[in-house]
């Protein structure tokens, strides 16, 4: 029902391009891991290597300690939830969910029972006789999940499963996905390019870029203490300020050389790392906060994005005395 996954020095080349470059990753049994990165970063390729839809050029994939080399998808203890759901449109939901069991020779009565139980798990009890086209996108997603879980895989692979849903439904499905994973205890490896989705569901986020793992850790750590500039900007908006010889453009700072990274919400009037007086260039109300572009008076060419409290109403031209609450310096 659950197993650990070891990715050992895996590389994948298509022609002359290195899609994955010596990637190693340990995933614990029962962990919910999210592979996060821009398109083309190799995250889907890595998922396909775990699922057996491709074989690595070099390196090994082990699931529950067993080397998977040469095993076709049907012989691996994994199943995949595809982005477009990949439901069988000519079958009822029950037959869809029971398909894997049918292939394993389970009797019609038994597999029907199991399918109904899986449909209940995903909140679709009593709809086993419907067909996929009668369902909404979110419901199809749930059927695909039930179908993949029905064969009790050790590892469930999810290939941008929420990518086709609109924002509201996506947030709702994230909560459900997380709670289903808690209940079944199966290892989930989930691919996405949406960093909010990753933070919402992951036990651990693995940030990938250009075929390599940039960073990994719990959401809070990856967001607040990114190890690289790429991670810092991919996880959310960030102001990058060059520091050289103890000097930032807006004045001296007691910080090492490198790039000072400030999140817009970390800049306030009371922040201890003083930036000094800044002129407001533009400000717009954004709901939970007011988003402003400001330029320090001492460095008028530097543009900072700042999130001010909901109640703030800065007019363009107004001067605010700002500082940073939290910050990080990354070597460039």
């Amino acid at each position: 029902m659950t197993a650990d996954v070891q990715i050992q020095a895996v590389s994948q080349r298509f022609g002359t391009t290195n899609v994955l470059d010596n990637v190693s990753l340990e995933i614990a049994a029962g962990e919910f891991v999210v592979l996060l990165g821009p398109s083309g970063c190799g995250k889907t390729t890595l998922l396909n290597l775990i699922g057996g839809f491709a074989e690595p050029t070099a390196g090994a994939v082990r699931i529950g300690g067993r080397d998977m080399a040469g095993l076709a998808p049907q012989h691996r203890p994994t199943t995949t939830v595809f982005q477009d759901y990949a439901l069988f449109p000519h079958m009822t939901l029950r037959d869809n969910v029971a398909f894997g069991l049918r292939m394993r020779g389970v009797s019609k009565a038994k597999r029907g029972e199991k399918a109904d139980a899986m449909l209940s798990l995903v909140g679709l009890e009593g709809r086993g006789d419907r067909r996929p086209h009668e369902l909404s996108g979110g419901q199809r997603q749930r059927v695909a999940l039930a179908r993949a879980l029905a064969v009790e895989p050790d590892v469930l692979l999810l290939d941008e499963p929420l990518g086709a849903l609109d924002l509201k439904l996506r947030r709702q499905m994230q909560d459900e996905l997380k709670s289903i994973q808690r209940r079944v205890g199966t290892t989930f490896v989930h691919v996405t390019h949406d960093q909010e989705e990753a933070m919402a569901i992951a036990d651990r986020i693995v940030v990938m870029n250009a075929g390599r793992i940039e960073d990994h850790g719990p959401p809070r750590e990856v967001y607040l203490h990114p190890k690289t500039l790429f991670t810092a900007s991919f996880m959310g908006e960030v102001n990058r300020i060059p520091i050289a010889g103890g000097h930032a453009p807006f004045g001296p700072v007691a910080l090492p050389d490198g790039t000072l990274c400030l999140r817009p919400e970390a800049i306030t009037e009371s922040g201890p790392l003083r930036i000094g007086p800044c002129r407001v260039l533009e400000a717009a109300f954004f709901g939970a906060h007011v988003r402003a572009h400001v330029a320090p008076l001492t460095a008028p060419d530097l543009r900072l994005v700042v999130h001010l409290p909901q109640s703030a109403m800065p007019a363009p031209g107004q001067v605010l005395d700002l500082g940073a609450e939290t910050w990080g310096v990354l070597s460039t």
Partner: protein
Amino acid sequence: MRVLSWLYLALAYVFVFLPVAVLVAFSFQDGRLPVPPFKGVSFRWYEKVLGDGDLMAALGHSFLVAVVSSLIALVLGFLAAHALARVALPGSALMRGVLIAPMTVSYLIVALGLLNLFNLTGVRLSLWTAGIGHVVINLPLCFAILYAAMGDHQKNAERAARDLGAAEWQVLALVSAPMLAMPLAAAFFLSVTFSWDEFIIAFLLTRFDVTLPVEIWSMLKSGLSPATNAVGSLVFLVSVTLVILLEIFVFRRAK
């Protein structure tokens, strides 16, 4: 602008359909020649045609050849499209070449080539040889239609079936074919239509038992008559029926 557009479209349709309209109209001519003046509506030419043993035999042959050759072309084309989808050639230009190349072979060339082939292998010309010709012509069509219908969704469903433990024949029988039900029907109906109307292959590759277009050609040797028009109208009627069936059973249900 809209009025002009409608007018132009109407004219284009008249241009395309006028020959058919004339053909059908003069098949009801109550006289010996399909020329004005129109002497009144009569079904006697249809009676004559439907009572003609040779014509009715040819009609039966045409049906047989069309249905059997289309079924064979359909199965072969489905397997070929599935095979191509699996091997996934590098480069879309090469892929398109593979799909388009078989269509370069025209009816006339196939007829000539097969005539050579049967000649030198000593196979006697018959309805079977004409049927083989129609398979050669319709296979590329079925292949292209079915391959085009295999979108990413189809491929992902097949991947999912394999992932869930299905063997290749189970993927074909339980997932691929049922998912392609509509394009399979479309390809079949189109093949039947093309085979039904086809003349040059049927003419060159049959001997004693002939199909309807060949029989019409024989009738034309003694000139146009309301009888030739009546047969032509029957051929057209069948084509139209096939296309209407296609529309009703395939496209309607596809929604």
